[in-house]
């Protein structure tokens, strides 16, 4: 059975601890054309706020890899995004991320899927909640 309301509440194991490094923060800032911001440079750098997506995207593998849901990343678009930070990520943080399916709404071949990803340090300090609505369009059989 493809994804349905029955999957609301399903969660996946937390990702392996991810270390926020100065190189990765600088790479992400450059991808946002914001490499000149001194806050994002050096060994004491803070990460650009939306860096949280690096951790969130890592959890998407568990969602799209769940054979029961029959989801394909290439048939998915991002409809909305919310981040709520307890504090911004910074270089040296060891971060785990865990994805939960919050809501599923079906309309024809389209599934509107709300997921939330909790980011916390390996010591248990909460960092960020990233909530996304994804729209997945199933291939209609010919």
């Amino acid at each position, binding site marked *: 059975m493809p994804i349905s309301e029955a999957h609301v509440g399903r969660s996946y194991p937390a990702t392996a601890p991810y270390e926020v490094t100065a190189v*990765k923060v600088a*790479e*992400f800032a*450059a*991808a*946002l*054309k*914001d490499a000149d*911001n001194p*806050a*994002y440079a050096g060994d004491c750098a*803070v*990460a*650009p*706020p*939306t860096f949280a*997506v*690096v951790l969130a*995207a*890592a959890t*998407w593998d568990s969602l799209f890899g769940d054979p029961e849901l029959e989801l394909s*990343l*290439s*048939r*998915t*678009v*991002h*409809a*909305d*995004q*919310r*981040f*709520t*930070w307890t*504090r*911004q990520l910074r270089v040296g943080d060891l971060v785990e991320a865990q994805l939960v399916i919050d809501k599923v709404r079906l309309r024809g071949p389209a599934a509107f899927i709300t997921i939330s990803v909790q980011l916390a340090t390996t010591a248990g300090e909460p960092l960020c909640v990233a909530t996304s609505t994804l729209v997945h*369009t199933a291939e209609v059989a010919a």
Partner: protein
Amino acid sequence: MNVEVGTTIGSVSAAFSRTDLVRYAGASGDFNPIHYNDAAAAALGLPGVIAHGMLTMGTALRVVTDWCGDPTRVLSYYVRFTKPVVVPATGTVEVTFTGTVTGVSDAVATVTIEALCEETKVLGSVSVEVRVD
């Protein structure tokens, strides 16, 4: 920092090329092929390869972080991706972001950001909460 309601806090313009999308895919880990492969975009009925919503969202926030000077002041951030930013195979597409203060309460400013791509709003319901104490 002027935090009166109605204050325009600044603008940022960014030109996105396919190379920028590939760079963002690598930096973010989001390798959805609709952001680099025309056939994948067409298969979903999109008008062409589109920018990652998160690239648009992340770039838009520069309006706020340039204004407040300290990214750790950002408390929350919400956007709806209302229209796709179609990125041509050659050349670039430009998006202009403008921020305006919509509320101030208990040393937290709420800012909205308008994102215009060829006169079309590509983000909706944008709301950023920023600590301004």
